[in-house]
């Protein structure tokens, strides 16, 4: 069935079957992806996906269901399944739907040129990335990945309170990971480009950058265990922000899983820390005029000059705290309920360059990569202990590469002991961003 017709019939049936209000969230994604290996296309993907997630209030509780098949018979399944789920919940588990002041809105951030690109043009761009990576450095022997993808995404939400919003956007994502080898030593380096303006995309430069990063880590050794002053590169700090973002969510605080409970208005970080969430940031990778509940999104400081200004809310957690939703109620997909998520979530850059930060550091470590965040970071306590790579810093200069170390610390402490934030703001593809930061001291395990 066509999406509007499906949404309309679904809402009509739900209201007829005893739901007091309801919402039909539609999402469609057309995706194309090509992977190149050794100058040939090794994988190729073409897809069209759509589906509807339903939520509504039944006997005072919110029930959810979803379907990826949009036949008329699936409407009855959605309503029945949502009703079964609703009655399991305690009475207070009700998610209010958004009653909009301005109910209708349609946004488009589409570059029509992307829709006209042929498969062959995309394949050629991916091949140029690989060729440039192989050519740039002798030690680069192959690619771990060399992928080019395009997406066309539509989100459209209607509810029984009059909401009718939709957004369409498209984008290109290129990702390359080069493998460098010297003797028995193997290192990888990854780089990506994401955007809408095809003419700004330089495949060769993207490939070269990955190659340089892989090679720069060759010849790495360990360091003695101990406490070191460190500079974390922007991509590392951005990873920390991604993993620990939930400590700033109203719902995490309300459930007792964040140590920031009751600290709004207090200083929780060094004065150099200003943390923003900006869903419409021009230079960001995320574009969200409204969240998954249809609430308009806006730019806000979460931490301003070290002071905790606000938590991030969806409608339900906002109601609990007696505030307005910050427009951060997002679904991870059709199958998930509305939770909280960040958009372009970034640490505001400072004035000085990474080189100046390193000069101030004097002796210590530059950390360029961390792995194991999903296992080695505890979002409840803030503790982390992560495998890391980087470089030794001596007299403010970058020295030999370092590997097989772990850095350990605590996220809350990291915020407090940040000495300076650099001016080299980096955004990860998921929207999280940070410049290089200098941290007083971290515990490092090595030899």
């Amino acid at each position, binding site marked *: 069935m066509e999406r509007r017709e499906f949404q309309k019939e679904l809402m009509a049936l739900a209201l007829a079957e005893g739901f007091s209000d309801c919402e039909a969230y539609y999402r469609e994604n057309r995706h194309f992806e090509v992977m190149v*290996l050794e100058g*040939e296309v*090794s*994988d*190729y*993907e*073409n*897809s*069209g*996906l*759509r589906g509807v*997630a339903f939520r509504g209030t039944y006997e005072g509780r919110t*029930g*959810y*269901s*979803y*379907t*990826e098949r949009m036949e008329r018979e699936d409407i009855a399944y959605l309503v029945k*399944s949502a009703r*079964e*789920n609703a009655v*399991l*919940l*305690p009475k207070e*588990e009700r998610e209010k739907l958004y009653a909009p002041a301005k109910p209708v809105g349609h946004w488009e951030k589409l570059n029509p040129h992307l829709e006209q690109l042929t*498969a062959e043009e995309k394949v050629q761009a991916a091949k140029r990335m690989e060729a440039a990576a192989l050519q740039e450095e002798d030690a680069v022997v*192959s690619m*771990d990945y060399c992928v080019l993808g395009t997406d066309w995404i539509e989100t459209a939400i209607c509810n029984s309170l009059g909401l009718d919003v939709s957004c369409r956007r498209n984008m290109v994502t290129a990702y390359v990971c080069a493998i460098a080898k010297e003797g028995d030593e*193997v*290192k*990888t380096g990854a780089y990506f480009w994401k955007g809408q303006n095809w003419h700004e995309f330089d495949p060769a430069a993207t490939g070269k950058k990955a190659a340089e990063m892989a090679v720069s880590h060759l010849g790495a050794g360990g360091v003695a*265990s101990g406490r070191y002053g460190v500079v974390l590169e922007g991509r590392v700090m951005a990873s920390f922000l991604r993993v620990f973002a939930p400590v700033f969510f109203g719902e995490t605080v309300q*459930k*007792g*899983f964040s*140590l920031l409970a009751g600290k709004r208005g207090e200083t929780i970080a060094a004065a150099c820390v200003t943390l923003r969430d900006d869903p419409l940031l021009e230079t960001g990778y995320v574009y969200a005029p409204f969240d998954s509940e249809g609430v308009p999104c806006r730019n806000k400081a979460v931490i301003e000059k070290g002071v905790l200004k606000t938590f991030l809310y969806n409608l339900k957690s906002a109601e609990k705290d007696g505030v307005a939703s910050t427009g951060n109620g997002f679904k991870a997909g*059709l*199958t*998930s*309920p509305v939770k909280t998520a960040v958009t372009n979530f970034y640490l505001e850059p400072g004035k000085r360059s990474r080189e100046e930060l390193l000069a101030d550091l004097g002796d210590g470590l530059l950390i360029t990569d961390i*792995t*194991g965040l*999903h*296992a*080695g970071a*505890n979002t*409840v*306590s803030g*503790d982390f*202990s*992560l*495998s890391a790579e980087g470089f030794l810093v001596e007299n403010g200069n970058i020295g030999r590469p370092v590997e*097989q*170390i*772990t*850095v*350990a610390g605590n996220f809350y402490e990291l915020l407090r002991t940040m000495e300076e934030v650099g001016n080299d703001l980096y955004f990860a593809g998921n929207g999280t961003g940070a410049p290089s930061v200098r941290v007083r001291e971290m*515990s*490092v*395990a090595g030899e």
Partner: protein
Amino acid sequence: MLKKSVVENTLTAALETGADFAELYVEETRRNQIGMVNGQVETALGGLDYGAGLRLFFGNRVIYAFTNDTAEENLVRLAKETAATAKGARLYALAEMQKKYCRGINPIALYPNSVEKKKKAQYLAAASAAAFAYDSRISQTRTGFLDVTKDVLVANSLGVWAEEQRVRSRFTVEAVASSASEKQSGHQGPGGSVGFELFRRIDVEEVAREAARTAVTMLSAKACPAGRMPVVIDNGFGGVIFHEACGHGLEATAVARNASVFAGKLGQEIASPLVTAIDDGTIPNGWGSANMDDEGMPTRKNVLIEKGILKTYLIDKMNGRKMGMEPTGSARRENYRFAPTSRMTNTFLAPGASTPEEIIRATSWGLYAKQMGGGSVDPATGSFNFAVLEGYLIRNGQICEPVRGATLIGKGAETLWKIDMVGNNLKRAQGMCGSISGSIPTDVGQPMIRVSEMTVGGRG
């Protein structure tokens, strides 16, 4: 799920431009998930995943397309569009499809879709109560139950028509213990390719108390000292070390691209002679078990490493073609959105001769990792890292005080050589493994092992 004529017409259209292999995978999955916080239902979700994936081979080139509109005209159009992006040297005909029957590896006693959701919630509430009752310092619990009923059809141009229904269930519990300044958590997550009878096989309250015990123990733990030391890794989820450090490197998806340290080493000694490693997709009701893989081939037991010698890789059809080797029944995918590739099923280190007591007694100083958390690995370098959820220091052959925040890092190929004791207490544990064909249920497992030296990260 689809009429034979629809499948035939789709595959015929897919072969039009000279693909030498065409495969259609269709899936209809109903899933139900209940999550509780502190004994109260917080989430109750359910829905229908539905779609078809079409895979074409042109020599060593793979083209994958998927959609959730499976009307005949849409499937045929998608097949034509997809085929048009490549050209083969000659045309291949569609072979007559033979229906395969199921082997019944995973008998189901009680289908989860036939059980009232309220009944499922009762078990979760009981588990939560047991965790709270274990110790007054338990401040929060999260309990959950997930059941999945997945009907799968795989049909291909070489005459395969294979169908099966896969049912799996899993119970999860997290207990958080709090003191004035600290919070620590413990987890457990038993499951299998079983129905609701899972709750007859396990005692949810006992499982919840075990999670609570870890949380409370770690609350009083001091920071783990950092450095290189011997590490004893206990059985069960400890097998994640092998899964991450070696298992991924034995998947053809890494080997065929020469992106694994184990590439080109078949028949060679790659590990201590104490190491025998097995991947077995046929364990009855195993979490990673199925009658067939996602290419419609019967699953089987593959001995990967035998007494330190590399015996085989885990191989799917396309990588087998690239490597000149036969597939091993190891092709898996999360759902129709992913092309299948070689993945682990139930992977474990075989038991050895030492008792756990002997291993501890023989260790004068080191870390005892009783419970492991998750981890990750870079298959190109074999560098791995994973978290120790519950650890203790060993001194003079005795398990001493608990330590927290420990991380184990190393390189898989090196660690395999450093396994110097293997226990006799094999146990498997359930996990979700994420890789290029999505997130799939896999068992990890091992007896207690000792690694003579590892880098341990910690703050102490």
